[in-house]
């Protein structure tokens, strides 16, 4: 089972590993978007797939993934603890910056808007996106693939704010808290932290705009952290406190929650526990086939288009290759408009099936530093970081 420990960022190219995967039955079930359940409508949102209502966990339906930019009303929603902000008064709301700093700060929305504004497009993706495709299944939010979106964020650099506060030399982490709280005091508050060097990176922002509009309440109004390239668990919504720490944060939501096995594949043999874990961090590379869908019927001899999207953890997409014969041969897809290294990119490939039969479509993306996707599904006990090469079966004729 050595191949399980290949990095999830590598593509298993060898013929032997491919046949092994086939022999195992190929890991993930077929339609990566099939689990579309009950649709519900929450304030400022369109019809989304209901996972839970309190706190709200809502998934984006598949058809929105044909678009380069996800509309605000369609972006997924994921809160952890049930007392979520439903009313915010901008006259009194402040972000408090403090802890191990030269001086404490209190920033209003006007203060934020007075600082230099940064705008870029970045994928936001839940760490558990695709959890329902793990085999064996694991408890947790049973997301299909709709816990992701591509949004143009506008806000101010965290680094600029930390510079104003003056981070002391012996600082190790920066912690983030939001306006949400648990309905019982025994529920650990949702507090997350980043290593101080990470927090001071150029591209991390406190965003007060999504796609040119104020954030929707359910996506973190009035402002949230954006850590482009990293999983959304760090993108604290309804941000209220930024605390510089001289000791690592002790928080349930950093440890034991949101941890991955401390090895290159972030995986362990199915059903087992890792000996050592690290906090989840940068996203792996993914490509998703949006059209056609699992089980679709296509006519013989007529040109169809295979299309989808691809993204990585902050290194753009170098290429996407597509197979229509279950991985035996691959062709390069045409990439759409490039909105930068944190954005997803749409891709497409024309395909004219000449013969009747069942075809297995697959897509594999590689980012600019060579990170790609595994053929074998990589398992971990919390169901994080799914990025197996997806298979979509279609029938021609």
């Amino acid at each position: 089972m050595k191949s399980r420990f290949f990095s999830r960022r590598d593509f298993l190219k060898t013929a032997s590993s491919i046949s092994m995967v086939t022999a195992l039955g190929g890991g993930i079930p077929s339609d990566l978007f099939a689990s579309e359940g009950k649709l519900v409508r929450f304030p400022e949102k369109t019809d989304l797939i209901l996972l839970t209502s309190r706190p709200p966990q809502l998934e984006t339906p598949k058809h929105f993934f044909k678009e380069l930019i996800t509309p605000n009303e369609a972006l997924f929603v994921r809160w952890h603890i049930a007392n979520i902000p439903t009313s915010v008064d901008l006259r009194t709301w402040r972000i408090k910056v403090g802890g191990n700093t030269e001086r404490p700060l209190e920033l209003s929305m006007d203060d934020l808007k007075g600082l230099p504004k940064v705008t870029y497009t970045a994928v936001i993706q839940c760490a558990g996106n695709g959890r329902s495709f793990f085999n064996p299944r694991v408890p947790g939010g049973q997301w299909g693939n709709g816990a992701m979106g591509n949004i143009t964020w506008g806000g101010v650099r965290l680094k600029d704010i930390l510079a104003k506060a003056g981070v002391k030399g012996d600082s190790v982490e920066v912690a983030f808290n939001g306006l949400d709280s648990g309905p019982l005091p025994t529920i650990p508050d949702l507090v997350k932290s980043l290593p101080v060097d990470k927090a001071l990176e150029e591209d991390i922002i406190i965003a007060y705009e999504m796609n040119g509009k104020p954030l929707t309440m359910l996506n973190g109004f009035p402002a949230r952290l954006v850590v482009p390239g990293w999983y959304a668990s760090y993108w604290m919504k309804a941000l209220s406190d930024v605390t510089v720490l001289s000791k690592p944060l002790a928080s349930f939501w950093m440890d034991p929650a949101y941890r991955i096995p401390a090895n290159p594949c972030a995986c362990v043999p199915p059903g087992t526990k890792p000996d050592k874990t690290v906090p989840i961090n940068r996203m792996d590379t993914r490509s998703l086939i949006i059209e056609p869908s699992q089980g679709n019927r296509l006519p013989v001899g007529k040109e169809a288009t295979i299309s989808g999207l691809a993204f990585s953890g902050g290194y753009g997409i170098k290429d996407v290759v597509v197979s229509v014969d279950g991985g035996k041969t691959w062709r390069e897809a045409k990439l759409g408009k490039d909105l930068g290294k944190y954005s997803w990119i749409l891709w497409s490939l024309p395909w004219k099936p000449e013969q009747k039969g069942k075809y297995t479509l697959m897509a594999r993306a590689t980012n600019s530093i060579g990170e790609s996707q595994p053929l074998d599904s990589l398992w971990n006990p919390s169901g994080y970081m799914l990025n197996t090469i997806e298979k979509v079966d279609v029938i021609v004729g």
Partner: protein
Amino acid sequence: MKKNIVFAMLVSAGVLLLQYQVPIVQAEETGPVHSITLPTIPAELKEGPGKDKVMTLCAICHSPDYIPMQPPLPAKTWDHEVHKMIKTFGAPISDEDAKIISSYLAAQYGADKK
């Protein structure tokens, strides 16, 4: 063209186009105060002994739809979940009630049930 695709998707998802055209629910905007009202969506759980306990004790901190959302889980995993709620999150549930709840979960949402 694009409309057709959306329509096809909606039909395949079993949704009426009509429903889709209803405008999104707007937030209540009163000057600098931004407010929303969350809808109430009742959770539907399977009938069985112990359901009443689950509907009250497992609804203290979150909606009980956390339960039917899960895949079929082994009885051992359900029992572990119940004890996680008690130990990690401080669920005020007695040992006796925990047993009743675990049996309900294993019977109704278990992986090892025939």
